[in-house]
Structure formats: structure tokens, C-alpha cells
């Protein structure tokens, strides 16, 4: 009897939930790599500093998955879209992952690549499942469509609950109540596959959030967090930026980029001013997430945020291009919101980052903007 694979994939925020949904439908065991990056520094002992932080995160998570018993690795890849732009780091690095992981783990395992690219997204997943032997017949293809729709539904639910949670959290009377509800929802959503129970979980969570007591007299400031997606959803060296800002300052976090919107609701990220400004300030794509980050910034301005925080990997040229584009827009656009770029990698100091974030939030709160 063929041994059932144990699937391991990077944490990668909601992407893991999306990928795992297929394997849960196939009733395969999935390994949950924890979000914590506290031991991340040890990565420096076996990865090159020329890799960007995103590459290091992906690689480190795969190694953790192997250490936790995975025998089938589904690696997330940015390589396809960076082929189109000058940033070649993901392309250069990712194809070596398999070989490096084999040397490090000192054992063999199956290895497949799933492309985080909106063109190849669906095809990529089909390809992975086909290579693993799960899409052989026309009946399997029909089943795949159902699996895909379920995975998509889970992303949509996650997106809606997160958006609702962020609005309510800034006004909650009892600190920590909304984030606790959200955390419990995410934990259950990741593992639930039954349609009826999913619906109950979603509507039940919505009711709980709506029931949270809010201080309506509070008019919270709103900050957008933008940047490369993998960096945003990972924990910093030692702390979680969104929770830190929300808990300490009761500021609403606006997250322009979500996995659901990026793959299934692209129009919401490309409306109106976004196209107009892109033509003028960001015509060329450097191949990383620069275009996305730039669009997120413009969406954030449309949403009338009070401030924008860019999370930038140390040495990431595409994200640096965004800063230059922002500097140019600031000269032309009146009332551009306060903008701070936080540069970090595994060598960054959490206290230094916290000080900068605190100063930014305090500046906003005291500015009367």
C-alpha cells in the first residue's frame, strides 16, 4: 500500500491555508510550521546574506517542516514572475532549495513547487497534484474544481473576518477581545473542510465580532502596512507588528493586500488612481513585490489612511524603488500621509524597530491630522 505523504509547506500566511485545503480534502497529513522566527538567526549559519529575507524565510520554514517530519515539500516560489523583471534573486536561489535542503536534512523527500503567481496560480496547483498522482481521471478534474472553490472560499472568509476584526479592534473596550476571536477563527478555519461547519464557523465568528463592546466615541487613526507579503505575515525578529500597534495604540490597521484580493479580486487593487499613478511613477517593474507595494500605497491613500508603514527587506532593490517613487509622488501630491520605511532582516534589533514604530504612531496621535 502506498504510504501517505506528510505535507510540509512554508508558513506564508494565508497561502498555507490555501495550499493545505487541497491536501486536507485528500485527507493527507499536513505539518504546521509555527510562525515564530525567534531562532531565525541560526539561519545565518547556512544561508547566504545575498539572499533576501523572503528567500530566507521560505527556506527556513521548509527546513523546519522537514525537521517536524514532512516527507513531501511544497515549496512556494516567486521565481515565475521575477523572470519578467530585473530582480533575479528568487530565480537564482529557489532552484537550489531542493539540493540545499537534502544536504541539510540528510534524507530524501519529495519536492514540488507551487507558484505564487496570479497567472499560473490554478495551473500550478493542478501541476503539483498531478505530479503527486492525484489528478488522473476526468472525475479527478471535476473534484479539483470543487477543491479549488473551497480553498478560494476559505480565503474569502479569512479576508472578510480579518477586515472586520481590524475595524472593531481599534475601538474595542476590552483589549485583546477581538484578536482572541480572530486567532481562534484562523486556527479552526485552517483545519476545517466540511462545508456546513465552515459556514457555521464564519457566521458564528462574525456574530461574536459584532457583539464586541466598542467605544464609539473613539476615532482611531488608521495605518496601512505595505510591503512584500511574506515579510508582512512573518513575525519580525521577535514581535508581531500589527498586534503591537493595535494593542499599544488602538490604531486601526488597514491591510490593502490580501491573498484573496490579489488572486481573485484584482480590480479592487487596480482601480482609479492606481493606474494613473503607476503610469507616471512606477512604469517599470523590478520583479519583486515593488509593483504590489506601490499599488498598496496608492490604495491606502484612497482609503484616507493617516499613515503608511512599509516593511522592507534589507537589500531589496524593488522595495527601494518604491521609496523613490513615493518621494516623487510626495512632491506632487498635497497631503501625502506620513510614510516610514522599516528595513529589517534576521539581524535587525526588535527594540530599534519598536522605537521607530512607537515614534511614528505617537507622531500621528499627536499631530491632529
Amino acid at each position, binding site marked *: 500500500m502506498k504510504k501517505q505523504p506528510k505535507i510540509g509547506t512554508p508558513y506564508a500566511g494565508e497561502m498555507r491555508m490555501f495550499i493545505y485545503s487541497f491536501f486536507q480534502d485528500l485527507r493527507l497529513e499536513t505539518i504546521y510550521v509555527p510562525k515564530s522566527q*525567534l531562532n531565525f538567526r541560526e539561519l545565518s549559519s547556512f544561508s547566504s546574506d545575498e539572499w533576501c529575507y523572503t528567500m530566507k524565510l521560505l527556506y527556513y520554514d521548509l527546513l523546519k517542516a522537514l525537521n517536524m517530519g514532512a516527507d513531501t515539500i511544497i515549496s512556494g516560489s516567486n521565481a515565475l514572475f521575477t523572470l519578467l523583471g530585473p530582480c533575479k534573486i528568487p530565480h537564482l536561489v529557489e532552484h537550489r532549495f531542493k539540493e540545499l535542503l537534502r544536504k541539510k536534512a540528510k534524507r530524501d523527500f519529495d519536492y514540488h513547487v507551487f507558484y505564487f503567481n496570479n497567472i499560473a496560480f490554478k495551473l500550478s496547483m493542478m501541476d503539483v497534484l498531478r505530479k503527486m498522482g492525484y489528478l488522473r481521471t476526468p472525475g479527478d478534474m471535476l473534484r479539483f474544481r470543487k477543491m479549488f472553490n473551497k480553498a478560494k472560499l476559505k480565503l474569502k472568509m479569512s479576508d472578510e473576518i480579518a477586515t472586520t476584526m481590524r475595524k472593531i479592534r481599534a475601538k474595542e473596550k476590552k483589549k485583546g477581545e477581538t484578536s482572541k476571536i480572530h486567532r481562534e477563527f484562523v486556527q479552526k478555519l485552517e483545519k476545517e473542510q466540511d462545508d456546513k461547519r465552515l459556514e457555521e464557523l464564519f457566521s458564528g465568528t462574525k456574530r461574536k465580532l459584532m457583539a464586541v463592546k466598542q467605544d464609539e466615541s473613539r476615532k482611531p487613526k488608521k495605518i496601512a502596512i505595505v510591503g512584500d507579503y511574506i515579510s508582512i505575515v512573518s513575525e519580525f525578529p521577535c514581535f508581531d507588528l500589527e498586534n503591537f500597534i493595535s494593542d499599544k495604540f488602538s490604531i486601526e490597521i488597514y491591510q490593502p493586500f490580501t491573498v484573496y484580493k490579489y488572486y481573485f479580486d484584482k480590480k479592487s487593487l487596480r482601480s482609479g488612481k492606481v493606474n494613473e499613478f503607476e503610469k507616471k511613477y512606477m512604469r517599470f517593474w523590478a520583479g519583486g513585490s515593488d509593483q504590489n507595494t506601490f499599488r498598496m500605497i496608492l490604495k491606502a491613500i484612497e482609503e484616507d489612511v493617516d499613515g503608511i508603514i512599509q516593511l522592507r527587506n534589507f537589500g531589496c532593490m524593488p522595495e527601494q524603488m518604491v521609496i523613490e517613487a513615493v518621494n516623487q509622488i510626495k512632491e506632487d501630491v498635497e497631503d501625502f500621509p506620513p510614510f*516610514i520605511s522599516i*528595513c529589517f532582516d534576521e539581524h535587525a534589533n526588535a527594540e530599534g524597530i519598536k522605537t521607530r514604530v512607537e515614534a511614528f504612531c505617537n507622531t500621528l496621535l499627536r499631530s491632529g491630522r
Partner: protein
Amino acid sequence: MRYALGIDVGSISINFALLNDKKKVVETLYLRTFGDPTKALRKGLKKFKKHKISTLGVTGSGRNFMGIIAGADVIFDEITAHSVAVLHMYPKARTVIEIGGQDSKLICLEKGVSKDFSMNSVCAAGTGSFLDQQAARLGIKIEDFGGIALESKKPTRIAGRCTVFAESDMIHKQQTGYKREDILAGLCESLALNYLSTVAMGKILDEPILLLGGVAANKGMKQAFNKILRTKVIIPEHYSCMGAIGVAILALEDMPEKTKFRGFEFFDTDLFQEVSECGDCPNRCELIHIFCTDKKGKKKKIAVIGSVCGKYR
């Protein structure tokens, strides 16, 4: 009369500012920590014993730890504290350049509020520690550094990207016979240029410009900024204590009915820390348990800090 005490716990110094309830500066104190801020805190607090402290504010890189030990009513980041102090004492100021022991800041002010700011990120060249280090290497007292630099007629060019490269450049200049004052003046200019490109990021700085932080005491740095910015930077009276003044003002703005300040007698007791690791989740946070000895000599826990989840507060 009610008093607010502000403490700025920096990387190489700890500064105190005592303000009355009219926000007027009564007394200030600047102390070097020499790696032991708790000892410096105890020493500094003795100066203010005769005043009844109604509220305490703490800022600086050591604010969270010292805030807990001292019993702060408010804890604010140093950028906010500096902005508040400048806006209170120099309301017409538009730009603040603050260069401390380990970090540098730029604060842009407009219409009475802080409009923008930035800090140094990965680069430490151009901070007070580097000047200290070079003064020691050349056998000069840091207090004399600026005066010697002012004697220069022709400052030499020194690499400014990184402290290691700057030092090797300086050594090379010494070996090739450059005058000491020219090297020091050149170093001041390269640090100022490094600051303007990495922290100010090429922005046009609006006047009036204030220079704060311990480095403001260095006349060579003042001259370097004047030359490069083509203006006269202003060094305020309390340039090294503005953070402490600012956080004292913030403490006054949020005056509590009863202060959390532990009192001066508390600092006559023993204070010590123990470190442990929390195993409740994969984060494995390093926890610092802070203890004091009570009047009976018994060990008493004051606080635990270091948990990411905030489980221990």
C-alpha cells in the same frame, strides 16, 4: 509646588530633568552610564531627593526596563519626547537634528506638530560612540575634540559610509602625515554628510535647525553642520537633556492623582535581575525577572519583562 521628573535612559548616558507644574525647567543632570544604567539612575536620583515628585516620565532606549524599575507614570519614545520639548521651548523651530550615542534622528516640525521624522537604520557611523572611540584612540579627551577640530584650516576627506572604513581611512591619513586637527575636522564633516544622506535622505531641511544630543557639545560637529547646511544651527541651552524635558512635559500633561513613582528610598534597596526562558510556545522568550529586597531583606519580585505575547507584564 508640584514637580515632574523626566528621565532619558540612553545608550551611553542617563539624563534627568525636573520641571515645575508650569513646565519650567528647575534642574537638569547628565550622567554617563558606563554600562550600568541602574547604578547611574540611583546616583542621579539622589540629586532630586529634596523635591516631592508628583509624576514621572521615562524615555530613551532603556525606557521600558527603567520605567518599570522606577515606576513611570508615562513612557514615551525619545522622538516624541524630543519633539515635545522643542515645540515647548522653541516653537518656531522647523528641524531637529539629534545625534545620540547609538542612534541619530531627524524631526521635521510644522505648525506646532511633528510632521515627519526618520532615524538611522543600519548605519551607526555618525553617532556619539564613534566620536568617543576615535578620541580615545587618538589620546584626546572627548571634551577637547571639538576645540581641536576648530583649529583646522583644511579638513581632509574621510570615508563616511561605515565606522570601520572611516577608522581605517583616518589611520591612513595619520600615517601619511596629515595634521591631527585636519583629520578631526574631516571626520566631523564626513559624519555630518553621512547623517544628511542616510537619516535626512537628501531632504531640504527648513530653518531654524536645532542640533541636540550629546554630540551637540562637539564644536567641530556644529561647525561641520553649519558649513554643509550653509546656515547656523542652533544649540539650545539644554541640548543634552531635551528628551528628559520632553517626557517630563508629557508626564505633566497626563498628571495622575497618585504617582506610580516608587520613591527615592526604594533605590536604597538592592535591585537585581534573573533571566529565564519561557517554554509556553515556540517563541521561547527570554524573560527578565526584576527583584528588589524589601525592608526585611526578603527578595520581592517587581516585574517580569520580555514576553512577546505580553503574558508577563
